């Protein structure tokens, strides 16, 4: 019994040492290999469809619904908003590389001058304030529509998140990783409890999706929401499910979480926006 205990304790220590010391690149390999072994019949690209990659019945219904995507109108509105000039005559295109087209796959990125993670949504709002405009709300509304339009110009481009080899960037990555694996809320769940450890199982009638594929298709138009929500809105929903305090959109913890989670998804194609029930 004592030996067994010692073995378990050593095991836990080893795993945590391993987790702390692995490089982001090693983490990503381990993460992606886990899902490849768990779902040997799926190709890597299949994961971008979330639960619909796992459940054929749900997929058939979803595909039928997507003959006329429920987000079409909102996506068009996003394009108009993106192209509308600011009061000073400039526009969003002036703030971004490649005029804002086909860049979703590079976000979030680490800003070495300010030592912080910049998500696409944060960059959109900074573009506005730099041009004398008010900020937009982060989780839904006009900003989510603009972000959805920008995602749509990146279709099939491959996620390519960069973690520069400096202490601050690695610290942001580690903080995101820590968040992903830590239990929280009255119900005591980590993100990994549901989306890694119990992936593919059912909580009541909800299949738990793989975290490989999570950030590829946001913003998501959820039927339950009736409009687009950003990735941070989804993080907040998942926090609420376990009776944890949901955080503000673009809070440091959520930006770091997005940095970690999106880096884990490097190599997957962008397929956003998408619809979900």
């Amino acid at each position, binding site marked *: 019994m004592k030996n067994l205990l010692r073995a378990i304790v050593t095991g836990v220590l080893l795993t945590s040492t391993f987790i702390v010391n692995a490089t982001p690149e090693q983490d990503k390999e381990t993460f992606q290999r886990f899902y490849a072994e768990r779902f040997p019949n799926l190709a890597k690209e299949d994961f971008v469809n979330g639960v619909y990659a796992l459940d054929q019945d749900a997929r058939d219904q979803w595909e039928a619904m997507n003959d006329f995507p429920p987000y079409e109108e909102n996506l068009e509105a996003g394009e108009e908003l993106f192209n509308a000039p600011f009061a000073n005559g400039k526009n969003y295109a002036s703030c971004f590389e490649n005029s804002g087209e086909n860049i979703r796959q590079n976000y979030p990125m680490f800003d070495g001058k300010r030592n912080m993670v910049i998500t696409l949504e944060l960059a959109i709002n900074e573009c506005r304030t730099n041009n004398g405009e008010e900020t937009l709300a982060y989780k839904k509304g006009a900003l989510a529509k603009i972000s959805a339009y920008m995602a749509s110009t990146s279709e099939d481009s491959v996620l390519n998140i960069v973690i520069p080899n400096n202490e601050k960037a690695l610290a942001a990555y580690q903080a995101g990783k820590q968040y992903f694996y830590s239990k929280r809320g009255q119900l005591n*769940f980590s993100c990994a*409890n549901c989306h890694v*450890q119990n992936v593919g*199982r*059912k909580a*009541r009638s909800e299949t738990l999706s793989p975290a490989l594929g999570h950030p590829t298709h946001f913003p998501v138009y959820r039927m339950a929401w009736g409009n687009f929500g950003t990735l941070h809105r989804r993080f907040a929903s998942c926090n609420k499910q376990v009776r944890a305090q949901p955080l503000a959109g673009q809070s440091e913890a959520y930006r770091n979480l997005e940095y970690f989670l999106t880096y884990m998804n490097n190599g997957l194609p962008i397929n956003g926006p998408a619809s979900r029930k």
Partner: protein
Amino acid sequence: MPINALFTALLFTLLSNIAFADAIEGKKIAFDRAKGNCLACHSIDDGEMPGNIGPPLIVMQARFPDRAVLKAQIWDATAKNSISIMPPFGKHHILTDGEIEKLLDYLYTL
């Protein structure tokens, strides 16, 4: 003596009625999404749309002859399995001690 026997019989019916009522309450607690929501993860009895994250809750008496062991699993599943996904119902005050006792009465009917 007959009076005593009658009394014992009465007391016994009364007590088992209480246990029975508790078991009914316990079932509500197990199925209620805002309470135990055990069905999220376990198939139980005639509960609809159970999840399949945890094992089916069946033949509890035979598998958990010691009520304290069963209570410990519900109180804090992470004591036995540190990465258990099962919420620590007692430790985190998700259910009161009284509710957990009723839940146990119900589980022992399975």
